[in-house]
Structures are given as C-alpha cells and as structure tokens.
C-alpha cells in the first residue's frame, strides 16, 4: 500500500486546521454548549420549576446511565468501531447480578457484602462481554456492526429467558441495602452524578493525556498508518470494547438499585441514545476525532429535551419524538465541521 501515506498527510493537515482555529473563537466547537444553554433558557421560560435544584438533579441522575455508557462508546466510535449491544448488555448484566445477589443472600450474612459482590460481578461481566466483542472483531475479523447486532439479540433473549418473560426482582432487604447507591447523595449531589463526573474526568484524561488515547485516535483516523507506526491495533481495539463493557457494567451498577428489577424492556434503545449523545457531542461518526466533554453535554442535552416536554403540555404528546428529532438535528448543525 505505497499510496496510503499520502491521504494521511492530508488528513493530518485537515485536523491541524480546527486546532489552529481553537485559539480564536470557533462557534462550531461550542455547538452543543450553545444548544444546551438555549434549551435551559427555553425550559425555564416554559416552566419555572424547570430551574429548581431538585429537577436539575433528577435530570443529571437519570442521564448518568446513558452518559457513562456514552463515554465508553466515545472511545469505540473514535477508533472507528460501533457497539449496538449496550442496551441489551445492560439488561442482561442487571438480570444476572440480581439473580446472583438473590442466590448469595442466603449464604453470605451481611446484605452490604452481597451487594458489593453483585457490583463486582457486574463490572467483571461487562468487561468480559466487551472483551468478547473485541476478540470477535479483531481476531475473528467480523465487522463490529454484525458482531454487536448479533449479541444485541443474544443478550436480550437470554435475559427474557432468565426472567421467564416477566421481571427479575431484587429481594427486599437487599434492595434496602443497595438503595443508597442510586437514591443517596453526597454534599447534596446524588451518588450517580458523582460517578458520572468521575468517569467523565477519567475518560477525558485517558483520551487526551495518554498513549492509549492517542493510539485510539490514530487508529480511527487511519488504521493502516497506525499499523505501520507500530501501534498494536488489535490490542488497542480490543481494549476499547473492554472499556465500553466496563462502562456498561458501571451504568448497570447504578441502574439496578433504582427499580430493583430487570425486565425485557430494561435498557431498550440505550444504544441509540448513547450513540446519539456521542455524535451530537461533536465526535466524528467516521472515527479519528472526538471529545469527552462534548459527549457529556450531548447526553445531558438529550435528557433535558424529554424533561422539558414532560414539564409542559404545549405540544401534543404525539409529537414528542419529532421535537427531539428537530433539536438533535439543529444541534448537530451548530457543531458541523467545515468541509
């Protein structure tokens, strides 16, 4: 492939442009922020209750699941991959950890210990599923779209089978011990929001300040060139899927105490919400370039839209999805790249 380096040089040149522009004020870079601020103003104007602390914490807490998954998804998309299975994976992890905790409740004395074991299991299961995706994609040479489309069906079907079509419910005393992980707060801020914040900071550091982050971007930008530059492409890709799996595990750990149950509708369409948050936040769907901060704002933006729609009734409920669609397209337009 002697011709490969030429397009890369061009690509590098391309990416240099927005970096230079970053020093001046580039409105496109701030598209998602502008969109979010506008939404906040509209929300407050429509219903003063929107701007209350309680409502904002409600919104941030419910964003935490999708937000944490989006951060993992951001790495996968930057590396040029995709994962469609995250919603089903969350559902299966939720079901699996509830079954495990219910089973352990008899033999392990303290409910807190049972919950700790359940949480550990969720993270390991998530990481395991992610690595399995990574192996199938890198060693098995199957398109990520197909691998994760396949597991999307597998995970949800296994959960439905485990639940016998109904719901898997956490035992009551375990539920009480586990409750604070979702409902508790620290310094007035709910626990899931703290975790979301921690994962975001860790994600940003990993992407922008480490060799791994640079490799992820290099692979997404041009896999061939990254390979020539002695980047262990397969290993890095494998790790991005593993990382996303762990993120799904963290999200599930926060999700389970909310309702204390998993059912076949758990995590339905989370994959689309997570992908939308990443793209709305300014990450290129083609890979190579992305932002963690943008992803966080994208995730918050998506849940603010439905919050505002719930707090008002000026628009027919039949049109809710249309409003969401319009806002998503408008924000994507604001942060569009110059050709």
């Amino acid at each position, binding site marked *: 492939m002697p011709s490969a380096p030429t397009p890369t040089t061009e690509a590098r040149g391309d990416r240099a442009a927005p970096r230079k522009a970053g020093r001046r004020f580039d409105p496109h870079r701030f598209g998602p922020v502008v969109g979010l601020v506008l939404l906040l103003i509209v929300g407050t104007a429509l*219903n003063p*209750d*929107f701007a*209350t602390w*309680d*409502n904002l914490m*409600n919104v941030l807490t*419910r964003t935490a699941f999708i937000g944490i998954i989006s951060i993992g998804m951001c790495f996968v998309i930057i590396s040029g991959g995709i994962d469609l299975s995250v919603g089903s994976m969350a559902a299966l992890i939720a079901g699996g950890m509830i079954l495990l905790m219910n089973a352990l409740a008899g033999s392990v004395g303290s409910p807190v210990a049972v919950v700790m074991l359940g949480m550990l299991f969720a993270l390991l299961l998530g990481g395991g599923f992610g690595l399995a995706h990574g192996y199938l994609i890198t060693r098995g040479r199957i398109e990520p779209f197909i691998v994760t489309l396949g597991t999307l069906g597998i995970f949800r079907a296994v959960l*439905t089978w485990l*639940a*016998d*079509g*109904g*719901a898997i419910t956490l035992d009551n005393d375990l539920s009480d011990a586990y409750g604070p992980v979702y*409902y508790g707060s620290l310094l007035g801020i709910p626990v899931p929001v703290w975790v979301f914040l921690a994962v975001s900071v860790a994600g940003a550091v990993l992407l922008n300040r480490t060799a791994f982050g640079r490799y992820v971007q290099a692979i997404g930008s041009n896999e061939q060139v990254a390979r020539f530059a002695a980047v262990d492409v397969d290993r890095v890709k494998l790790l991005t899927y593993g990382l996303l799996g762990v993120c799904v595990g963290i999200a599930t750990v926060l999700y389970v105490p*909310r*309702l204390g*149950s998993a*059912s*076949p*509708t*758990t995590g*339905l369409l989370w994959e689309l919400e997570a992908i939308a948050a990443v793209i709305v936040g300014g990450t290129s769907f083609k890979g190579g370039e992305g932002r963690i901060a943008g992803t966080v704002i994208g995730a918050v933006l998506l849940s603010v839209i*439905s*919050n505002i729609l*719930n*707090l008002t*009734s000026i628009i027919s*409920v*039949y049109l*809710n999805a249309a409003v969401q669609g319009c806002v998503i397209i408008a924000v994507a337009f604001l942060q569009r790249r110059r050709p």
Partner: protein
Amino acid sequence: MSEVARYTRRLVLGAGLAMTATVALGGALGGVAVAADTVKLGVSIPAATHGFTGGIVWWANQAKAELEKAHPNLKITVKTASGAPEQANQLQDLVTVTKIDSLVIFPFESAALTQPVMQAKKKNVYVTVVDRGLTDTSAQDAYIAGDNTAFGRIPAEYIAKKYNGKANIVALRGIPTTLDNERWEAFTGVLKQYPDIKILDGKYANWNRDDAFKVTQDFLTRFKDIDVVWAADDDMAFGVLKAIEQAKRTDIKEVFGGAGSKTMVKTILDGSNPLIRADVSYSPKFIYDAIKMTAEARLKGDKLPATYIIPSSLITKENAKEFYFPDSPY
C-alpha cells in the same frame, strides 16, 4: 410407543375421514360444521418480551397441557413470534407443514396480519382472533378480546366515587395504539361528567417501568398537588411508586395500575401498600379461555359466537383472591 403409532394412524385416518365428511356434507348442507374426530389447533402469539406477553405465553402453554390431557384427540401447536413478518411466516408453516384445521391467533398488528390470516381461512382453517381485531373481519370466524373500554372506565368510575367527584389526577399512557386510545377515551369520557375532577396531564411511558419513573418524577416536579396517579398498567405503576417514594410526597393518595399482575394483586390482598388499593383485571388468561373455547367447540363441531368480550372487573381486597395466580409469571 406402539400406542402412539396406533394413535397416529387413527389420527391420520380420522382426519382423512373427517375431511371427506366435511367436504361431502359441506357441499350438501352449505357449510354446517361437523364434529371432528381429531382437531389440530395452531396457536400463534407474540413472544414474551414484557410482563404481559410473558403471561400470554405461559397461559397458552398451560392451556395446551391441560386440554391435550383432557382430550386425547386434540393436538395443540404453540408458536411465538417477535414481529408481524415472523408471525406471518409461522402462520404459513402451521397451515402447510403442521396442517392445522383450527387457529387461535393473537396478531401483532391488525393490518399486517389480515391477509395472511385470510389465506389460512381460505384453506378451511377455523380462525379465532384474540385481542386485536383484523381490519377485514371476514377473515375471522370468531373474535375474543379483553374489554379495553372497561379498562379505562372502571378506574375512572372508581376514582370518581371514592373521591366524591373531586380530585387532581395525572395519567400515564402506554404506546400510541388504538388499544391505548380506547382506554384513554373511556377514562376521560367518564371523568368529563365530574367538573371538579381535573386530569392535569397524560404522557406516554410506553408500558415501561423506567419511562414511568421518569415521567412521574417530572409530573411531581410540575404539579404540587396530586391526589391520584392513573398508571394504567401494573408495570408502569411499579415505576410510579418508586418515583413517589423518592420524592417523599404525601399528597398522593392512590396509584391505580391496570391488568391485575400477580404482584399487584398480592399487594391488594395483603394491604401492604397504602397507595395500592384497587386494580382492574385484563388478564393474559384470556388466551387460555380463547384456546379452550375454540378447542372444545371444534371437538363438538360447534361454532363460537362471532364476538366474545371477556369482561374486565374491579379488583379490590374483597375479591382479589379470585385474581391471584401465584404460578403465572405475570
């Protein structure tokens, strides 16, 4: 083993004879049904993707087990599908491969399944449609359904009576469908007669616990004084209760679900949650009733009434026992 073989032979012979008889008599008497020696009944239902359809699958298999035991000359085949196209394909297989002579079908979508069912009926399959009516009713011999109007009317009447015609209500809706519209119109229709009952708003929560939780959180932020939440589904009621618990609101006096799931009926029976006092039945057991009625009528050679609505009733502490099925997954 030999008994099975003998039985199979008899079955084939019987089916052949029955068919000849039907054709002969049908010609002479103009389609009067004839008692069949054997009945091959196909059951086509949605796969278990949430609590209610999980119940449908469980009750269908329950009917198969009980009826096949009671009637040795009855063979029931249960097929579950996860979408309308898959259901149409299964229908073809049931007719051409399994060679069913009777069908009980719970269609995914009315419009999409009308033609495939019509094709089956043209091959002399007796068709009972359950829950969702076909767009062309000539494709069905009988229609058995739960009462969606009562599903909305009963809670409305209950609330109006209990709160003496004065209450603030917020409502959850399912997924935009004709079924949901029927319930909603029946609910709001009754409450229009009470000027002091206000329906503050109704939003879709997709018959889903998580969405119900979110929508309720927002309702609680928006409205400071709510008396009753009409959750319109027991799964959604679960999410509603969690959201109320989190917000520590004490103004809400009652949460009314719907369908009569096992856990809700148990809660009413035990009186374990002061917010849950009543429910309306819309049990997935109707698939069991439909299979039983069809099979028994076909074995006798009878026909079913063209339309049969299984009544929905109000479940309270007094009668909750009759609606409690601990073995069912729903």
